[in-house]
């Protein structure tokens, strides 16, 4: 590491740097560095050794090999382990910076002075499509400075660009074998050398290396490389909190910065999950909403562009009219993108806290729930901060769900949970503050497991999910709903969002059915029983002492639930503790219906609900169904299935979830499995195949339908002695239903899923 010769700049173009109202860096040895001492001594990383191996770097002046914290050093600096790794943190005992708006900052970092491995590489976010590794291009700085000021002025936590310097010359390695040798060169020389390296390494067919070099030099001719000093609330990015050790460091940092014994005690007792789920998520929701209210979007709100305290950094992607740079007004799409990315960051970080499969079974369930809670809290606070009225919130959330349509490669489950988040946030939002007092530990057993001390801070669980405790639970588990299928009673009015809620209920919420059944004692409800039944359908023999994976842990959970139900429902259901698939296979559907009675749901609205959560049993199931004499296969989406259920159409519904379909598509046994479907199809009773519990994913339906067709013809070609003509073996799809297979129609059906039926 060397000290760069730089010149301090007062601004970029017409945009001036706001110098701090107060700036104080206290070194661990007690020495205090002021603004000029820090800004005037820019450190630069000059070797890989500096950049990656040394935990703590010391900016030296004259004394070589000086010890850390030596009084001769201006200040120590270390690499900030952020996404790009081009930021140095000033390693101080304490940092106290205040901007002109009265905002306070506890960390100062230096961006754009990493010369350890300067090379040109392509970057989608770079102004000219290419950027020099480790450096900060000048063209975005005006936007960064303006965005920083605008956000800070309005009390929105964001990085504060408090200093700007331009290097006089740039250190460049001259001997690849000796990383410590470097030469200080002016910018044109650096650019030419790096362009030459690029041209020789990135060989092209259509251009000579000399042409590539000349083009690159021209491309970068108006780009300069400046170094910014950034004051931030914390030197940790949110993404780093996925690592428990880093989270401990983060807590240490907070304690060091704030000499408050109460804080120390509080943080010691603050479970990380509580912080991330209930405090950070809430804070982030408020901050994002404030930014959007201002007419600004961030654009890349992933976990590395948010600090561990929820403020925004890397503002070069910020857009919006108020920046005064000629931007168009931000659109709903910009807003939705920020929200989706921010929520994704919550999920990603919580993934890092996934408990071991050997943990208590509730651990797994709780992590998934925590990811839902965190997003709910985020979104609820967002809605509140935006000051939406009820109808505006509904329109906003409906748009958000439309924006987040499932992709072909996306597991439907993630979208289903997204729907849960949206519905939960909606309920919390319209529920208002009155639901806060409803929260107690008894109501939140899963959270209790994580020892969440939500009463320690006002904001904790301020957005308590009314879904579980009031609005949603009452309606979800009301007798009216489950017994009489009065879906519209979910809410007084019938708005698109309520259909969305239904979709969430119909999809991934099965496990919530079971949970609520347990909590509410409504386990005699047919729907709840079926939920438990279907979720338990893939239960295999599990040794409680040896749970090798999450799925088995999940199964084990439902085995327990099933046992409880068996106990309460009587001897008739003693077989429930066996794998349900075995249970079903040993009985014809008719016998099953006769024996259980409970499957005759409201006079046969659904004769039988079969949920296949394991493709290995696929073929056997169809062999079991071979008992049925007539056949008709109908492909519909879940909305249509529910409509038929509501209309009490006497169909057998076979739900094939997306995960199974995906598995079948990938397995070497794919053809065999599809063959099983078509080999027996003509013997089935009316059979509805729902591909995907949220089968409003038209692409999935269509693709799988085509795969079915292909597999069928392969099957025919491979089967000798089959007297039937291929045409006759085509699925006997009524015209009206066949029409449903068109992409447009499926899309309409999907939309219908989110609109009133």
């Amino acid at each position: 590491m060397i000290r760069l010769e730089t010149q301090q700049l007062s601004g970029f173009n017409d945009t001036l740097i706001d110098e701090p109202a107060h700036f104080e860096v206290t070194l661990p040895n007690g020495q205090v560095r002021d603004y000029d001492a820090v800004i005037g001594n820019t450190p630069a990383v000059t070797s890989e050794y500096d950049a990656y191996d040394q935990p703590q770097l010391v900016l030296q002046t004259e004394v070589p090999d000086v010890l850390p914290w030596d009084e001769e050093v201006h200040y120590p600096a270390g690499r900030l382990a952020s996404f790009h790794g081009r930021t140095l943190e000033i390693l101080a005992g304490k940092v106290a910076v205040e901007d002109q708006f009265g905002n306070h900052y506890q960390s100062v970092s230096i961006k754009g002075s990493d010369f350890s491995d300067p090379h040109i590489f392509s970057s989608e976010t770079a102004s000219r499509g290419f950027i020099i590794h480790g450096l900060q291009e000048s063209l975005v700085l005006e936007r960064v400075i303006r965005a920083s000021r605008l956000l800070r002025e309005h009390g929105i936590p964001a990085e504060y660009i408090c200093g700007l310097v331009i290097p006089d010359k740039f250190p460049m390695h001259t001997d690849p074998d000796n990383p410590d040798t470097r030469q200080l060169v002016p910018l044109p020389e650096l650019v030419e050398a790096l362009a030459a390296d690029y041209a020789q390494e990135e060989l092209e067919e259509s251009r000579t290396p000399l042409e590539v070099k000349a083009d690159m030099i021209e491309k970068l001719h108006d780009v300069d490389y400046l170094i910014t000093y950034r004051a931030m609330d914390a030197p940790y990015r949110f993404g780093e909190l996925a690592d428990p050790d880093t989270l401990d460091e983060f807590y240490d940092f907070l304690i060091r910065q704030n000499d408050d014994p109460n804080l120390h005690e509080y943080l010691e007792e603050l479970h990380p999950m509580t912080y991330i789920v209930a405090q950070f998520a809430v804070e982030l929701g408020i901050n994002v909403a404030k930014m959007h209210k201002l007419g600004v979007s961030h654009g890349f709100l992933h976990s590395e562009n948010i600090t561990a305290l929820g403020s925004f950094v890397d503002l070069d992607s910020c857009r919006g009219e108020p920046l005064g740079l000629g931007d168009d007004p931000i659109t709903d799409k910009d807003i939705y993108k920020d929200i989706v990315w921010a929520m994704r960051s919550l999920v990603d970080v919580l993934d890092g806290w996934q408990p071991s499969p050997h943990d208590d079974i509730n651990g797994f369930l709780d992590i998934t729930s925590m990811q839902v809670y965190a997003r709910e809290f985020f979104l609820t606070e967002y809605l509140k901060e935006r000051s939406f009225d009820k109808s505006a919130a509904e329109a906003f959330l409906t748009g958000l769900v439309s924006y987040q349509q499932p992709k072909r490669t996306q597991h439907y489950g993630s979208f289903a949970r997204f729907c849960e988040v949206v519905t939960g946030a909606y309920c919390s939002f319209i529920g208002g503050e009155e639901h806060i007092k409803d929260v107690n530990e008894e109501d939140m057993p899963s959270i209790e497991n994580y020892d969440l001390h939500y009463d320690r801070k006002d904001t904790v669980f301020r957005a308590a999910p009314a879904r579980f405790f009031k609005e949603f639970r009452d309606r979800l588990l009301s007798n009216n709903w489950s017994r009489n299928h009065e879906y519209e009673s979910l809410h007084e009015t019938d708005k698109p969002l309520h259909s969305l809620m239904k979709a969430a209920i119909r999809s991934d919420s099965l496990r919530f059915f079971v949970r609520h059944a347990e909590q509410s004692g409504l386990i005699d409800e047919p729907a709840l029983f079926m939920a438990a039944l279907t979720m338990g359908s893939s239960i295999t023999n599990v040794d409680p002492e040896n749970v090798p994976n999450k799925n088995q842990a999940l199964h084990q959970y439902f085995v327990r639930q099933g046992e409880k139900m068996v106990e309460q429902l009587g001897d008739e259901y003693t077989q429930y503790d066996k794998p349900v698939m075995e249970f079903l296979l040993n009985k014809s559907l008719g016998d099953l219906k006769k024996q259980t009675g409970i499957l005759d749901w409201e006079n046969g609205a659904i004769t039988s609900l079969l949920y296949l959560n394991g493709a290995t049993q696929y073929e056997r199931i169809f062999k079991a169904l071979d008992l049925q004499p007539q056949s008709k296969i109908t492909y519909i989406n879940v909305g249509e299935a529910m409509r038929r259920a509501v209309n009490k159409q006497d169909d057998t519904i076979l739900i094939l979830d997306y995960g199974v379909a995906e598995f079948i598509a990938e397995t070497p046994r794919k053809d065999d499995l599809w063959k099983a479907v078509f080999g027996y199809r003509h013997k089935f009773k009316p059979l509805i195949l729902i591909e995907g519990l949220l089968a409003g994913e038209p692409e999935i339906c269509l693709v799988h339908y085509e795969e079915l067709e292909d597999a069928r013809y392969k099957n025919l070609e491979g089967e000798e002695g089959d007297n039937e003509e291929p045409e006759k073996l085509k699925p006997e799809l009524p015209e009206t239903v066949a029409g449903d297979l068109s992409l447009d129609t499926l899309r309409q059906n999907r939309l219908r899923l989110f609109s009133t039926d």
Partner: protein
Amino acid sequence: MGEFEANSRQVISQEDFMRVADGLLAHAEDPSKDVNECLVSAQTLVQGLDDVKAGNLHVEPPLSEEQVSSYRKQSQLVIALGQKSVRALQATSERRGFLRRRQEPPEPPTPTAQQPARPAYSGTGSDAKK
């Protein structure tokens, strides 16, 4: 005549001419070389070709028209690329602007404790703040 060393009668063998010309071109087309050096090499080759054309330099046996055309085309391409790079690098240097400002520190308009005067940077070529 530069690199093309002819005898007293200004005659150079075709073999020697091509050896020198190929060397100049190789140097000129080497992207790792300094762009100004590349320009000089290419321009030297063009000068040699001009001398041949003007009768100041005789190549024995004479170069074919194709050979002359090829050398000229390649060297002119290198010159064009080199000049393009030189102009861009010059622009890079000029747009920095800070060297000039260091020599002539700007006068602060109204320096205050909150906002001491420092040169504003113009990275897009607009007028430097004075």
